[in-house]
């Protein structure tokens, strides 16, 4: 198993290197001079002064060739040093340390919510196959999947706050146990929930046609017991297999949701970094994003055989 994990990590390294190289090249060749950004917040009354700019460039090591600078960046990255922000001059690592827990909490709670409600709705839909309840749930799942969160979020907000008046304006971050977090959580979990509903629905439909369900039925076991004992277990696999896709979806949506609701997490950091051309922050965010996706995919692959031993044997056959 450790060999498998090591293999995956080795294959991940070139991916991240390529992505970082692309962003670094964009910063180096495309975005204009980072010196001017540093220059703006340089101490003292420095007028626009070519000599002074050259000095700062020399100090920051920004006059060296591209690959040397990129190698230098990687060396620092391996040591856990993301560099300093070009805009605020703060340590990027500490900026991320402040923002990451907020996004992480939102993401984890949203994942929990969507797994529970999504499975429930999917199972209910499958048990009422082709009846009106199934049509409503399937139609909901199909309709909601494409709608971007910056549309569903504001629309829900206008509806709930202005017309129904059931909640205050959700803005900012006041901890996970504050009522203001409810709407962002709903919006964040509702899009990927559609995926879980569809997956669990089709999984249940497949399981229901299996022989052991018919056997259980013919023995007179009540429906609720069949669902709990025989159906819920096999549908875990297709749901777990979607986690990688859901993580990417959530990372992308976090950027939009945190903008809409003013939450100071990774997403807001991203938007600020992009509008300020703050490349050290952008590079760190790209690195963290790819790491999170890799980790989730790795965990999924590792617990997959525990849920469904057939998956492991298939994989072994394939690799042999």
């Amino acid at each position, binding site marked *: 198993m450790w060999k498998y994990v090591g293999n995956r990590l080795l294959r991940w390294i070139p991916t991240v290197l390529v992505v970082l190289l692309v962003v670094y090249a964009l910063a180096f060749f495309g975005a204009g001079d980072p010196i001017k950004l540093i220059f703006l917040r340089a101490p003292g009354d420095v007028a626009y002064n070519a000599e002074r700019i050259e000095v700062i460039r020399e100090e920051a090591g920004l006059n060296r060739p591209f690959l040397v600078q990129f190698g230098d960046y990687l060396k620092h990255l391996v040591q856990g040093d993301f560099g300093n922000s070009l805009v605020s001059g703060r340590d990027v690592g500490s900026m991320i340390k402040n923002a990451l827990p907020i996004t992480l909490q939102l993401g984890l709670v949203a994942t929990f919510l969507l797994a529970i409600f999504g499975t429930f709705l999917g199972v209910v839909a499958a048990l009422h196959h082709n009846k009106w309840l199934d049509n409503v749930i399937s139609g909901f799942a199909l309709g909601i999947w494409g709608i971007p969160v*910056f549309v569903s979020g504001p629309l829900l907000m206008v509806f709930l*706050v202005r017309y129904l008046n059931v909640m205050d304006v959700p803005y900012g971050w006041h901890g996970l146990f504050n009522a203001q977090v409810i709407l962002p959580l709903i919006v964040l979990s509702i899009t990927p929930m559609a995926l879980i509903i569809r997956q669990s629905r089709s999984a249940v439909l497949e399981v229901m046609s299996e022989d052991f369900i018919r056997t259980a039925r013919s023995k007179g076991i009540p429906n609720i017991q069949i669902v709990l004992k025989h159906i819920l277990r096999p549908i875990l696999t297709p749901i777990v297999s979607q986690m990688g896709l859901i993580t990417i979806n959530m990372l992308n949506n976090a950027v939009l949701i945190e903008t*809409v609701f003013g939450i100071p997490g990774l997403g807001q950091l991203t*938007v600020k970094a*992009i509008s300020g051309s703050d490349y050290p922050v952008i590079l760190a*965010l790209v690195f963290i*994003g790819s790491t999170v996706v890799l980790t989730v995919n790795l965990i999924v692959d590792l617990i997959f055989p525990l849920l469904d031993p057939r998956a492991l044997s298939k994989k072994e056959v394939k690799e042999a």
Partner: protein
Amino acid sequence: MKLTKRLHKTENLTLKARLDKEDVPAESLLKDAFRRLVANKGAVVGIIIIAILFFFAIFGPYITPYDFLSQNLELRNQAPSFQHLFGTDDLGRDIFSRVIYGARTAVILSLSITILSFLIGTIVGAIGVYAGGKIDAFIVWLIDLTMSIPSLLLVVVINASLKPPLISWMEKMYLQTKNTIFRETIWVDFILVFGSLALIKWPKAARIIRGQILSIKNKNYVTAARASGVSTFRILLRYIIPNALGPVIVLFSATLGEAMVLESTFSFLGVGVRPPMPSWGNMISDGLRVWHLYPHILIAPASFLAVVTMAFSFLGDGLNDAFNPRQWE
């Protein structure tokens, strides 16, 4: 009597079905799929909504009561009325007209994104299949790579960092050539948005097209046709394209919808189409600033985008069922 009539009818139907099957493959597949598609109510509603969207996009300037730019500072933030169907925004511009022009932006951009990504996808996929070996392995790796990273962030960065140098290059070109083409910086937005979005959309197209070519190329009927001396061009036209068409059409519709959402995402984040050019994304972003006082500014573009994305979802679902009879049961 009734029974025999019905029997007669079924007999006729089977005969007709058989005749359909022996028809030209391209026509029968499409006809078949179309019959299943129009039987799906959701898909029909989706088609109607998308048809209206395209109608708005093409004939927008002739329908809109006002120009999307004309301001009327005496009528700012007006609630919806008969003069202004969706009200006016903070500069007194008619929101209905702006939403219709937004449809134009959305259609132009999503069509060009989809066509470009299919072009790249087809070329890359075909190169992969026919070159084989290391080149194919590299292409598959590239496809996997782009699909396993949070690509939204990456394209936003690409878009944001290429814009300033491109605009300054255009200014330089204008000063040198005095050609007014280089003054129209609005096209830089369009080109950058669809260029960078095609960058994350082509891998999916390449994967599907590559898979299709790979599976059809080695089918017995292609081998038979080749053995009996049919020219490569004719094989492509008669056998490969008609048989690959189903999944490609499904993907085309899905990509069109996704591209529309991505375009508005870009504009919402402020890296896509810039105001005053209306895009649903930047209109939502504008509306979000004053939503508590004037919710109508936000509601109109957001509802349009929501309805259109739903239409694409339902159409995609219908197309998927129509072109995959085996899955359809």
